Every structure is written in structure tokens, then in C-alpha cells.
């Protein structure tokens, strides 16, 4: 990436404002996800409302950032690293917005679980573990974007398979529970939904990191096995 300044300082301002907005949006999504997991563990379903409200802000930011990208393309005809930054950002915000949606899904499942009773304690640990791993991915993908750090982005991409494996193991456990005791099915289905949402959040963090690699190095590492050189 290029750190030197444009001849047009206004262009520099436009780009740095855009990056700030993306990080703001990322910060909101990160809060949404951790609040949703917090609610799952504590049963504080009052925070569900906040998570849903935050999602509205996230959606607004997505639209505003896309609009800014369109304006920059129209006014500045960005090339090279500038072009990659704009293209990357416009995809990153899509993934952030979807990660926010997943957090909202988690929050709603949590509300259904606690409205119907309470959480059997044996489910807590696996989900916490999965959620921690996904949250680290989200945080690191945003850090990688902020610092334009392709190495960190690559490590997020590698981390995704561990989260996928963790999800599968939770899924198998829940199937066993449901078969052993059909009374747990309602709750178990909600927990599968939650685990699935967390796994998807990890996927979005991975996609964001792939865009960071593209922005920094100009390589498209999507849908490839050999992500790391």
C-alpha cells in the first residue's frame, strides 16, 4: 500500500474518512457479536434489544460507505492501490453487515431459549470456545485492515478451518443429545442455529481478510487452497 499523500489533499481526506467509517462499522459489529455471546451465557435478554438496534446503525453505515465509494469512483477514478482499497472496502462492508446480521440471529435465538426456560449448563463451554475463536478472527481482520497487514490477514484466513472444525464437533454433540433425550430438541435446535451463526461470522472475518490481502498485495486469494505464500 501507498502511504504517501495525493496531490489532492481532498482525495486523501475522502479516503481516510472512508477507512475510519469502515473501522467504526467493524467496531459496532464486534460489539454486537460479543454482546450476543454475553447474553447467551448470562441470560441477560435485555441486551437483545440493543443488539437489534445496533444492527440498524450497521446497516446505515453500510449504505453510507457504499455511497462514498461510488462518489470516490465517480469523482477520482482511483487506480492501483487506491482502486484496490475502494473495491476491497465495498466488499468488506458487505461481510461486516452480514456478520452483524448473524449477531442479531444469535441474539434472537438466545431470547427464545431463555423465554422458554433456561440453558442447560453443558452447552455453555463449547459455544464459548467457538465464539472466542470467531471473535479473535473478527478483531484481527479489522486490525489487519486498519494496519494493512497482509501477514495478519493470512493468519486469520488460516484460522478459519479450526472454527469450522469446532462447529462440526458441537453439531455432532448436539445430535447425540437430541437422540438421547428428545425433550432437548427445541433448545438444541436453537443452539445449532447459534453455533452456525458463529461459524458464519468466522467465514465473514476470513472474507474480510482476503480483501485485505487483495488491497495490500493485489493478489486475489479467494477460493484458493494455497492462501499463504
Amino acid at each position, binding site marked *: 500500500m*501507498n502511504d*504517501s499523500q495525493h496531490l489532492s489533499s481532498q482525495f486523501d481526506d475522502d479516503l481516510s474518512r472512508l477507512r475510519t467509517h469502515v473501522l467504526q462499522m467493524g467496531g459496532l459489529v464486534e460489539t454486537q457479536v460479543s454482546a450476543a455471546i454475553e447474553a447467551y451465557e448470562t441470560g441477560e435478554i435485555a441486551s437483545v434489544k440493543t443488539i437489534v438496534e445496533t444492527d440498524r446503525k450497521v446497516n446505515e453505515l453500510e449504505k453510507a460507505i457504499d455511497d462514498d465509494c461510488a462518489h470516490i469512483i465517480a469523482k*477520482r*477514478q482511483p487506480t*492501483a*492501490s487506491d482502486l484496490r482499497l475502494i473495491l476491497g472496502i465495498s466488499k468488506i462492508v458487505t461481510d461486516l453487515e452480514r456478520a452483524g446480521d448473524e449477531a442479531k440471529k444469535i441474539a434472537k435465538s438466545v431470547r427464545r431459549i431463555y423465554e422458554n426456560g433456561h440453558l442447560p449448563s453443558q452447552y455453555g463451554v463449547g459455544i464459548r470456545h467457538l465464539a472466542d475463536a470467531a471473535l479473535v478472527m473478527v478483531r484481527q481482520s479489522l486490525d489487519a485492515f486498519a494496519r494493512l497487514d497482509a501477514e495478519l490477514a493470512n493468519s486469520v484466513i488460516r484460522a478459519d478451518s479450526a472454527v469450522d472444525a469446532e462447529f462440526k464437533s458441537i453439531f455432532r454433540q448436539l445430535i447425540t443429545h437430541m437422540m438421547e433425550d428428545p425433550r432437548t430438541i427445541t433448545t438444541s435446535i436453537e443452539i445449532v442455529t447459534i453455533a452456525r451463526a458463529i461459524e458464519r461470522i468466522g467465514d465473514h472475518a476470513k472474507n474480510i481478510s482476503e480483501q485485505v490481502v487483495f488491497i495490500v498485495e*493485489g493478489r486475489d486469494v479467494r477460493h484458493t487452497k494455497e492462501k499463504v505464500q
Partner: protein
Amino acid sequence: MQIHDTPALKAEARNLNFYYGEAQALKNINMPIYDKKVTALIGPSGCGKSTYLRSFNRMHDLYPGNRYEGEIRFFPDNTNLLAADVDPIEVRMRIGMVFQKPNPFPKSIFENVAYGLRVRGENNKRVLDDKVEHALKGAAIWEEVKDRLPEQAPNLSGGQQQRLCIARALATDPELLLFDEPTSALDPIATGAIEELIHELKKRVTILIVTHNMQQAARVSDYTAYMYLGEMLEFGKTDEIFIKPQDKRTEDYITGRMG
């Protein structure tokens, strides 16, 4: 670079140096010009891109004290365009040029296009008619001027004049066309027409174009060379240069940063 899709060479600069008297304007340029492709030369003012372009048709011979070193090989015959025994007039028959400002002769539309053919000794009315029509069609201006061929060329609009100049360059069936900022004096519509025309022309002729308009280089060219202070810093496929240039200085220039 991949070898598999490298097209044939039309010309190639080899260790080309150029001096305006004592001042060295081109420094050891090595660059391929691919056959029936558009190659754009970009770079800040004074980087030598026009000097380089003009070396191809020996325009610098017109001024005393100018000096070339090295070669520009022209294919398929592998002639060194800069060799002392090569006649510049012959060179200019094979290499046409279009300038920044349209410069039609103060003659009729017809005579502007027929001029090069007449210089060559062609006087047969039917041959001239045919070739003039063919050239005007090639320059996408025939429909606009076919009923007014005897009119004075300077009465045409700027964009039409420029296309007429392209027709004039095409009339002698050149193998290489040199464009020196061909649209900088034109409005966006006329510019669009010229760019469209360049796209058509490359089916039969190789094109080398100097442009200050980065987006134009990105739109019309297959290859781009970035020049700076008389040196060629980067040459590559246009698609690659505008997405991921290799040289930081190219990047700074095309993204509009101070360099």
C-alpha cells in the same frame, strides 16, 4: 512475464539514447512495440515520452544538434529506423503521425487526405477517390463529410478535423500510427469518438500513443509504459499496471501522489 500470449513485435527500441544538443532527453530505452496493439506512453511533463514518440518517424532530424544513439528496429524487415542510410521520408510513409492540435492543411477535405498519396506520385483520379474514401471511412468521418469533400477542411469542427488528420495519416496505409496527445484539445464526445476509432484501427495498424489522461491510457491501450526523467521505469500490460504496478514511482504517478 508469460510467454504464451506475447504478440509479434512491430518495433523495438534498443539502448535508445537521445540528446537535444548537450541535454540527454532519453536514457537507454529498451521497449517492445507489439504488432496491432495499442501501447500508451505515460509520465509527467518533460519525461521524454513525446521525444521518444517522435524518434520513430525521425522528426528530430529537422533540427540541428539533435543526436540519436542506439536503435529502433522496425519489423518484419528488421530495419533500424535511426540508421543514417534510412530515408526519413520513406519512414514517414510507413509511420503516420497525429498531433495534439488538429492541423489540417488549408485545402479541401479531399485534398487533405489525398496529399500524402500525391506526394508519392499517385495522380490517377479513380485511385485517389478510392483511397480517400477508404481512409475517411477508416477514420469514421466519411458519413459526415462525403457530401462536402470540396469544402475547406479548417471549417470542420475540432473533433472532425482531428479525425480528418487521422484519415490523412491512414491514406498512405501506414504500419504504425503515432498519436501525440490526440484528444487533449477535444471535448469529451469528440474524445470518445477518437478512442472508439483507435479501438477499431488496431485491427489493422499498430498504435503508439502519448497521453496525459491516465484514464484514456487505461481505456485504449493494451500495453503501458511509464516514463520518468528520460527513463522507462515500467512497461507492462495495461490491465496489470493500473491494478498492481510493480514500481512505487509508477504507482505514485497513476494514483496522483507526489513522487
